[in-house]
């Protein structure tokens, strides 16, 4: 039987009008500006840019405002927006070694060239709610001291000089780079595609998977070799200009996880690594990403695949919160016809059951 689902237009229109009203909240309270969101909820903006896979602070702030602070809804809005613009091409790969570092720590070496730089961090705060913030608190100006001219090489580069850590996989200069926004995913997937998938993956999902590896589900003995956050320059080879033009700088967080060593009959043992990179200051995200990147290398490193975090099809097929929310939330859309047929079938089965058992009271209950 076909059940027409019509007549909802006015209800939908009024529901959206009510949503807009609720979004605004008490109209006696000042409206939030995008600048307020971008400046004061900046880590939320970073997350929406990272998982929305679009670097644009103002758009991410708008998405957060429109989504009433629902991050996954905001990420969805940003993903939908990116589909409206043409892509001019791909940038030159960014050089995180030349980052203008705002934070840079290593849990493996105390004395790293360039030093341990804490930067703006929640680490070592006491996690006590601060009532001062409720009343227009004006913080002190930051302390300053003489800036060092010393380079801040990646910790993995330092380990690499002695051959103690595996080198990063290299590619031919013109080798194609996998892009899951252009081609459907196939398994097994190469590491470039895995990293792209993890970079836009849901932070909570990666956090849980990363945590699971620490608790023994695909253990790989990680150390946070280095975490750095700061600004990197972006260049784009412009066909019309004929050279790589500077586009400005973006903020990035990078995590180099150093993991238990690996060797073979022909190769001396060395540390292995997992890598995390994300827009903005996204430390938890990049740490989780690096743990999962490493665990997904199980096959390549001849490790037994026993845990969810080592199963690339499982991880990559469930990491995207826009896809996940689409499929979970579609359950609330009208399924009247599907359900009607299930109901019809169930009634028939119950009737057959009742007849077979000669239990008339069951048949009544089914009506």
């Amino acid at each position, binding site marked *: 039987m076909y059940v027409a689902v019509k007549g909802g237009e006015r209800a939908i229109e009024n529901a959206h009008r009510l949503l807009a009203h609720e979004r605004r909240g008490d109209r006696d309270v000042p409206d939030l500006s995008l600048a307020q969101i971008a400046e004061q909820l900046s880590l939320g903006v970073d997350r929406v840019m*990272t998982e929305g*896979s*679009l*670097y*644009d602070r*103002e758009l991410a702030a708008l998405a957060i405002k429109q989504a009433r602070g629902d991050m996954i809804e905001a990420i969805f809005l940003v993903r939908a927006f*990116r589909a409206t*613009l*043409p*892509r*001019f*091409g*791909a*940038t*030159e*790969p*960014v050089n995180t*070694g030349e980052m*203008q570092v*705002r*934070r840079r720590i290593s849990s493996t070496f105390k004395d790293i060239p360039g030093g*341990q*730089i*804490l*930067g703006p961090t929640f680490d070592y705060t006491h996690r006590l709610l601060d009532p001062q913030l409720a009343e227009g608190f004006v913080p002190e100006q930051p*302390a*300053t*001291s003489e*800036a060092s001219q010393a380079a801040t090489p990646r910790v*993995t*580069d330092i380990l690499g000089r002695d051959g103690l850590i595996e*080198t*990063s*996989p*290299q*590619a031919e200069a013109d080798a194609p*780079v*996998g*892009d*899951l926004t252009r081609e459907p995913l196939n398994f097994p997937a190469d*590491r*470039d595609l895995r*990293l792209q998938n993890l*970079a836009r993956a849901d932070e909570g999902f990666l956090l849980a998977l990363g945590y699971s590896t620490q608790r023994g589900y695909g253990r790989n003995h990680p150390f946070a070799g280095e975490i750095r956050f700061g600004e990197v*320059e972006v260049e784009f080879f412009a066909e*019309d200009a004929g*050279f*790589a*033009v*500077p*586009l*400005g*700088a973006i903020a*990035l967080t*990078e995590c*180099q996880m150093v993991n238990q060593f690996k060797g073979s009959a022909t190769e001396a043992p060395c540390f292995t*690594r997992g*890598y995390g*990179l994300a*827009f903005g200051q996204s430390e938890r995200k990049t740490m989780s990403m690096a743990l999962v990147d490493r665990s997904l290398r199980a096959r390549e490193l001849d490790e037994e695949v026993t845990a969810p975090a080592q199963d690339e099809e499982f991880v990559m097929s469930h990491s995207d919160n826009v896809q996940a929310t689409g499929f979970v939330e579609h359950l609330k859309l009208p399924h009247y016809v599907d359900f009607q047929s299930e109901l019809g079938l169930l009634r028939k089965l119950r009737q057959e059951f009742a007849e077979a058992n000669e239990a008339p009271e069951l048949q009544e209950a089914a009506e």
Partner: protein
Amino acid sequence: MDSMVRNSKEAQRKAAMAVLAHSGATEIAGRLADITVPAHENLREPENGLVMVRGRIGGDGAPFNLGEATVSRAAVRLATGEVGFGYTLGRDIQKAQMIALCDAMVQSAELVGEVEAKVIAPLRAVMIAERSRKAEETAATRVDFYTMVRGEG
């Protein structure tokens, strides 16, 4: 020799573009107001688009696609023939237009001195000051380890 001249010109254009891309549209417009802008036409209407930002596996390995960024671009031609290109992160097409205009002026032997002195140099000074301020704030959070000596050795 020819290629050296071209490379140094390209380096100068890139350096100017980098300063402009780092500067705010309002600041660029303010500096441009101080000079006589030459007659020009749009070679490419300013437009918004995306670039796919690439990182490298492990920071120094094979490239991978990290995520996209919004960009704006424009191209202008001066009445004297120089063609300038403007590219910048973000969706401000006026900014891309001004960068293209400056890039064209940097290529003009008559205009390069003025645009460097009155537009690029002051914006560069602001950019460097801003970088230094951040670097000094960051430097104050550097950990100075010291070793506590206990007992008499």
